């Protein structure tokens, strides 16, 4: 990223699907267009204001998907969930994730959410550190899983 470039956040549009697929592929080394078509279709129905992309140097360099839900896991109050975050590896460390998160938190506040939650695998220290830098703290809500 050029040193003086600014990050602009806007709502994700369906013409950005290819960019999202590319960023995911750069991160995971997997080409998964069908996965993102289905996911983005879902978020476009549920809460398109909580589907965001970051623009840097005129191209999509990151994305974040989330929504406000209530009534799950015993959480009755409206809760903002950050569910997906992807930043182009070439642009990581440049404030893209923070810009996306700040826009998302503003949206959650406007939707009446008092709490924001996300889940981070404990092996992903960098992601945990990112959310920690935004003010996220470990929650008493613990994830449980079992193999079927």
């Amino acid at each position: 990223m050029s040193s003086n470039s600014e990050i602009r956040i806007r709502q994700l549009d369906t013409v950005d699907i290819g960019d999202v697929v590319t960023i995911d592929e750069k991160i995971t080394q997997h080409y998964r267009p069908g996965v993102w078509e289905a996911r983005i279709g879902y978020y476009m129905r549920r809460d398109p204001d909580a589907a965001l992309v970051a623009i840097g140097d005129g191209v999509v360099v990151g994305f974040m998907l989330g929504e406000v839900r209530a009534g799950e896991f015993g959480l009755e109050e409206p809760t903002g969930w950050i569910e997906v975050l992807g930043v182009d590896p070439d642009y990581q460390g440049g404030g893209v994730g923070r810009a996306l998160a700040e826009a998302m938190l503003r949206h959650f506040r406007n939707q009446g959410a008092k709490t924001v939650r996300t889940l981070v695998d404990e092996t992903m220290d960098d992601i945990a550190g990112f959310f920690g830098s935004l003010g996220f703290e470990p929650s008493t809500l613990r994830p449980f899983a079992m193999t079927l």
Partner: protein
Amino acid sequence: MAVREARLPKNFHQAVEDWRDTFLPDYSFLLESWDKHFPKEPRFKLCAYREMGVCGEVECGAKKGQPKATKPSELDEEQARHLLGAIRAQASTEFGSIQQHRLTLARAQEEEEQVWVLRMMAEELRHGYQMLHLLVDDDWSCQTEQSSADMVEEILSMQTGSHVLGAFNIDFDSFVDNIVFCGLIDRVGKYQLAMQKISAYLPMAESMPQMLREEAFHLATGVVPMRRWMTKAAEGEVFVTVDMLQKVLNKWLPRGLEMFGDERGGGSNVRMGLKPMKNAEAQSQYYDEVAKLVDDLNMRYVRTKLPEASIGEAREVVDRLKQEGDSGTEVRGIAADELLHMPHGDFFRRRGVPAFRMVGFHGETYDDHGEYMQHLRKMLPESYFASSDFRDYSQTLNEVVAGELEAEVAARRMPALRRVAGSCPCSKSVRWVRDEPMSEAPAKSVDERPVESAAS
């Protein structure tokens, strides 16, 4: 932000439900299928939504910074006239698109695609309802002698062929039309709604946020199946080919470009604080956005066809084939005509600056009507040639080429708004019909030409 729900008075609400029973008979199927396709999502509700807390000050134009109008009588005469026209046009498009989609809805090959389109149709009905709410909830007597009942009646009585905007007067020929229409024409709607979000008329501005949210899904209803079809085409499936998609794209893109209005216009809307962009600027952004969509679809095709290729290699193939056009060149076994290409912005135009100039797909121009028809025959879906819309276009173009009709007059002859009185002296009815030739009509300024600038 808080959202206020509103319903039309009972008689008007019932009128919309009756309209729905006629033109959206699969509505009950949508409700039955809702939990299967949209689990945990709020069920559709026929009502108007007004978002509270939107900006209360005029955001552009001569009155920037002043309080937005909360009722029509607070608008000046010119503002009110423009706005009333825009609301009527928008209502017309919402109902009009349902009439188009229903023709070919049953031809969908995938249930998911069909139900997505059906949901989109229901939401378009709600958008039309929202516009009727603006007409009925507010007192427009400062601008029109028509009663609310008459305005609602005329909008609900429109049929394909008599709608305000050209794109809503064209019949669909296959389910490919449903999908491409969502991807291209609803994209125009997104622009119009986004621009109207800053409207100097507060009830209009408050109506836009929820409509925009729903519009985002309507775009997905078009784009996601198009991406899947490109994949299947690359795998060799014959149901929806790239050639078919290209021709349907060629059919709709010119109409989408025209929906922004004459390229020389839009200044009045900016000056009056009703929209932030002139027509040409919004149209140009739209064209670039569709070009990005086409590029994305091509990448999907190439990645499927060349699964071993990296992102960079696939990008190189797409870029090279785009440069080659239809030269017959192949790159890594893929021919240029296997991909989608963007028509020139002046191609097959019948309104605006390039109207009736006979511009070809690549921007080349034609002098002979017959040669241009042969060119269009290669570029447009075959079934579209049998439509009255295309026949009328061809006949009008012939008159222009023969020097019997000015292009500007011909452009106004394309389906547009016309108010006529009833034939019976005691009748108060009015209706909107296809415009007759207006060669004797007085010349209008660019901003006064038939509104071709609202849709969703």
